[in-house]
C-alpha cells in the first residue's frame, strides 16, 4: 500500500520534484548565487510576462490544444502605444487604459474570427503576429522609446517600503506580510478541512494535509525573508499574483472556467449540453489578448523602454510553460498551479544559465530539451496508465 502511495505521490508532483532538483542543481552550479536575495526577488519579476500570459494561454490550450501566436506582438503593440502616448505627454492612467483597450479590441477581433467565423486559431493568430508587430513598429517609427513617466514606473516596478520600518537591505514589512499570509493560508485550510469533515465529505489523511500546509508556509516565509533582504515586496509581484489567483479561481471554481475544459474534452457533447462553444473560444482569445497587453505594460515598465523587437518569441515561452506544466496538447486538461510550476521551472533554468554564464545559444538548446522531455514524459506516463 505504501509503495503505491509513494508512486502516486511521485506522479502527482513530478514537476514540483523536477523544479526542486533543477533549483538545487543550479544553486550548486552557480555556487549559491541563484539564491542570493536579489536573484530570488528578480526570478518572478524577470518572468512576469510568462507567468501572466501562461494563464491566458492555458485557456486557449484547454479549448483543444489551440495556441495564440500573436501575443508577443500584442505585448509589443501595447507597450509601444503606452510609451508613445506618455512620450507625447499623456498621463499614466490614460496610457494604461489605451493600451488595455487595444488589447481588448485585439481580443474581440481574434475571438470573433476564431469563435464565430471558425478561422483556425493557428492561422488567425499567425496573421495577428505579423499584423500587430508591424503596427507596433509603425507606432515606434522603428525607434526605441524610453519611458520617463515616474507614476507609470512606480505603478509597476516600485517596491513596498514603509518609511520608518523598512530600509533597502532590511524590509521588515515583507517578512511581516509573508508571515501573515502564511498564517492566513493555514487558518483557511484548516477551517475548510474542518467544515468538510463536519459535512461528512471525504478528506485525505491529516498528515498529508498538514505536511502540505507546512511546506507551503515554509516556502512563503523563506521567500518573504529573501524579499526582505532586497528592497521588499515588489509591486509587480502583486500584479502577477492578482492575475494568477483570478485565473486559478476561474479555472478551478467557476462554471465559466469549467466550460473551457468541456469544450476541449468534447466540443460536440458540450454543444448538446446547452453550452455555446463559440462563446468559449471568444473568451479564451479575448482574455489572452487582454493579458498580453497587460504584460506589455509590465515589461515596458520593467525594461524602461520599448523597441520593435520587444516580446519576440514570448508566445513560445508561454506555450512551453503550459506544456511543461502538464496541460494536454489535445486540450481539456491542465491547471493554473501546474502551469505556474512550468513557468517557474523555465524561469529558474533561464536565470540559472544566465548567472552561470552559459551563452544564449546554449540556453535555447537546454530549453528545447526540457520542453521535449516534459511532454514526452507526460505522454509516456499517461500511456502507461492507459489514459492515452
Amino acid at each position, binding site marked *: 500500500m505504501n509503495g503505491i502511495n509513494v508512486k502516486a505521490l511521485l506522479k502527482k508532483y513530478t514537476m514540483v520534484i523536477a523544479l526542486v532538483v533543477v533549483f538545487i542543481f543550479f544553486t550548486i552550479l552557480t555556487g549559491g548565487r541563484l539564491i542570493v536575495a536579489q536573484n530570488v526577488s528578480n526570478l518572478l519579476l524577470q518572468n512576469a510576462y510568462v507567468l501572466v500570459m501562461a494563464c491566458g494561454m492555458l485557456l486557449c490550450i484547454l479549448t483543444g490544444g489551440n495556441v495564440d501566436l500573436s501575443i508577443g506582438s500584442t505585448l509589443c503593440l501595447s507597450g509601444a502605444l503606452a510609451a508613445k502616448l506618455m512620450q507625447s505627454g499623456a498621463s499614466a492612467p490614460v496610457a494604461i487604459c489605451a493600451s488595455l483597450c487595444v488589447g481588448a479590441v485585439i481580443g474581440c477581433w481574434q475571438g470573433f474570427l476564431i469563435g464565430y467565423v471558425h478561422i483556425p486559431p493557428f492561422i488567425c493568430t499567425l496573421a495577428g503576429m505579423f499584423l500587430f508587430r508591424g503596427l507596433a513598429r509603425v507606432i515606434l517609427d522603428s525607434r526605441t522609446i524610453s519611458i520617463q513617466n515616474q507614476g507609470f514606473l512606480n505603478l509597476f516596478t516600485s517596491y513596498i517600503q514603509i518609511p520608518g520600518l523598512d530600509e533597502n537591505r532590511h524590509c521588515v514589512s515583507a517578512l511581516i506580510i509573508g508571515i501573515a499570509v502564511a498564517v492566513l493560508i493555514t487558518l483557511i485550510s484548516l477551517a475548510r478541512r474542518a467544515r468538510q469533515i463536519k459535512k461528512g465529505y471525504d478528506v485525505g489523511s491529516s498528515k498529508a494535509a498538514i505536511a502540505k500546509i507546512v511546506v507551503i508556509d515554509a516556502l512563503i516565509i523563506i521567500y518573504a525573508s529573501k524579499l526582505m533582504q532586497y528592497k521588499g515586496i515588489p509591486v509587480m509581484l502583486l500584479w502577477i499574483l492578482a492575475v494568477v489567483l483570478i485565473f486559478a479561481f476561474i479555472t478551478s471554481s*467557476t462554471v465559466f472556467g469549467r466550460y473551457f475544459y468541456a469544450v476541449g*474534452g468534447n466540443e*460536440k457533447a458540450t454543444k*448538446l*449540453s446547452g*453550452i455555446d462553444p463559440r462563446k468559449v473560444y471568444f473568451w479564451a482569445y479575448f482574455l489572452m489578448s487582454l493579458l498580453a497587453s497587460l504584460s506589455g505594460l509590465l515589461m515596458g515598465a520593467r525594461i524602461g523602454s520599448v523597441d520593435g523587437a520587444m516580446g519576440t518569441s514570448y508566445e513560445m515561452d508561454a506555450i512551453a510553460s503550459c506544456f511543461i506544466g502538464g496541460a494536454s496538447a489535445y486540450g*481539456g486538461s491542465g491547471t493554473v498551479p501546474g502551469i505556474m510550476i512550468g513557468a517557474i521551472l523555465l524561469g529558474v533554468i533561464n536565470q540559472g544559465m544566465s548567472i552561470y554564464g552559459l551563452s544564449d545559444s546554449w540556453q535555447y538548446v537546454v530549453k528545447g530539451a526540457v520542453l521535449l522531455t516534459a511532454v514526452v514524459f507526460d505522454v509516456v506516463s499517461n500511456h502507461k496508465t492507459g*489514459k492515452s
Partner: protein
Amino acid sequence: MADYILEMKQITKQFPNVKALDNVNLQVERGEIHALVGENGAGKSTLMNVLSGIYPYGTYTGDIVYNGKVCKFNNIHDSEKLGIVIIHQELALIPELTIAENMFLGNERKNIFGKIDWDKTYDDAQKQMERVGLKEKSSVLIKDIGTGKQQLVEIAKALSKNVKLLILDEPTSSLNEEDSKMLLDMLLDFKKEGLTSIIITHKLNEVAYCADRITVLRDGSTIETMDNPDHNIDEERIIKGMVGRELTNRFPAREHNVSDEVMFEARDWTVYHPVYTEKCVDNKVSFKVHKGEIVGFSGLQGAGRTELAMSLFGRSYGSHISGKEFIKGKEVHLRNAHDAIKHGLAYATEDRKVNGLVLSDSIAWNTTMARMDKVSSSGIINVPAENKAAQEYVEAMRTKATSVQQPVSTLSGGNMQKVLLSKWMFAEPDILILDEPTRGIDVGAKYEIYGIMNDMVAQGKAVIMISSELPELLGMCDRIYVMNEGEMVAEFRAEEATQEKIMSAILQSGKKKEAAE
C-alpha cells in the same frame, strides 16, 4: 476428435488492478461460426486482443494453439500473416480515402519499384467488393457511404488478406435489422466456403440465428460452451449463462399510466440536410407524446429519426427547419440546446462517446454538465455539492465506479450510458428523448436502463425512445411511431404492434414511394 482450428488454453491476462481473464479456454472448430457472448467487461474483447497479438506474447499466460501449432504473436501483423483477422467495433477506416485505398492500407498493391499500382488496386478492390455484395465503385470515399457499407468494406478488406479465421467484434451494433441480417447471411455463405468466424455480439437473436456453438464468458472466466446445431437455441438459456441467473423478464413491469395531457407535440416538422441543403431528411413529421408515456420511434437506418430528435432539440441539426413544436400545449421556439434544456427537453444521444460525454472528464463533471446552475451560485461551483449530486446518481443508477472523480473514459459501455442518463436526469427534463439508449450494452445493464425509464414515466415525465431493436420497442413502449425515409409512415398502439406489422409498414411505404417516382 473434433478438428480445432484454434484452441486457447488457460489464458490469463492480468492488468495492473484487475484480472481481466482468468484461465479462459476457447475451442473453435474449423469451418464453424462461433459466438462469444458475455456482459460488458466479461473479457470478450480482451480475449480477442490476446488472440490477435494486440497484447503480445508474454503479457499473458497460457497457450494459443492455431492449426495445431503454439503461436507467439508479437503484434497484429504476426496473426494476420497466419490468416487471423479482427474487425473491431469501431471501424478502422479513414474517411478521406477511397474504398480501395482503405482496403489495401498497409498491404498496398505495388510494382517491383515500389510504386503503387493504382489500376490493380482499384481492380482488386472491386473484386473483393463483389464477394461481399457491395455495390459501390472502389474509388468512392469512405465518408460518402453509410455505416452498413463501411462494415462490408472492412470484411472485404479482411478477405483480401486471405483470412482463415475472421473475428468480428459487435459487427451489427450500428446496423439496422435488415443490414444486420444481410451481414449474417453473408457470414453463413462464407462458412460454406470454409471460413471460420468468431463473432462477439450482444444481440442474442443473431447468436441463435447464425452461431454453431456459443461460448459464454462471465467476469473473465469461461462459463460454458453450448451447441446450437439447429440454430434455435433459447435466448433465455444464453442469458442465464451470461448473468448467472435467470432473468424472468427482459423488460421490467410497469403500470401503464398514460394521462391525456400532451407533453410534447411536433407539427409538420421539416428538416433539410445541413450540408446538402436541398436534401430533405424529415418531411412534415407530426407526432405527440403524453405525460407518463413511453413512445417508440422505429425505422431503418437513415429514416431520419436522430435528425428529427436533434433538430427538435434546439435546432442542433439541419438547416431550413420549419414546423411547430409545442411543450405542454404552448408553442416554443427553441433556438439552441440551452433553450431546449431550459424548456424541459433533454436529448441523450445515440453516440455516447462522440456526442454525449466528455470522456477525459470525471463522472461528477459529466453529470452536472447540462445544468451547472444547479450546483453553483453566481457562477461559482459548489464542488462538494456537485460531488454529492453525482454520487446520488451513481448510487441510484448503480453505476460501477470507484468514485465520482473517475474519468468517464475508464468506464465500460453500460456504465458510460448510465452516466449519460444521469446527466440528463440531473437536468430534470419533462420530456426525455433517448436515442438508442441500449446500443452496445449488455443484458443486465439494459434491464437496469429499462427500469430507469419506467421510473421516469412513473414520475410523470414523457419519454421518447428511438431504437433499432424492435423487441425492446415492443417490450417498453406504449405507442410506436414508424418512420421511413424522413416520413412518418405508421403509428401503432403497443397492444397491436408486432415486428411483422412494423416491418411491413416500412417496406410498403418504400414501395409506394418507388411507385410514385
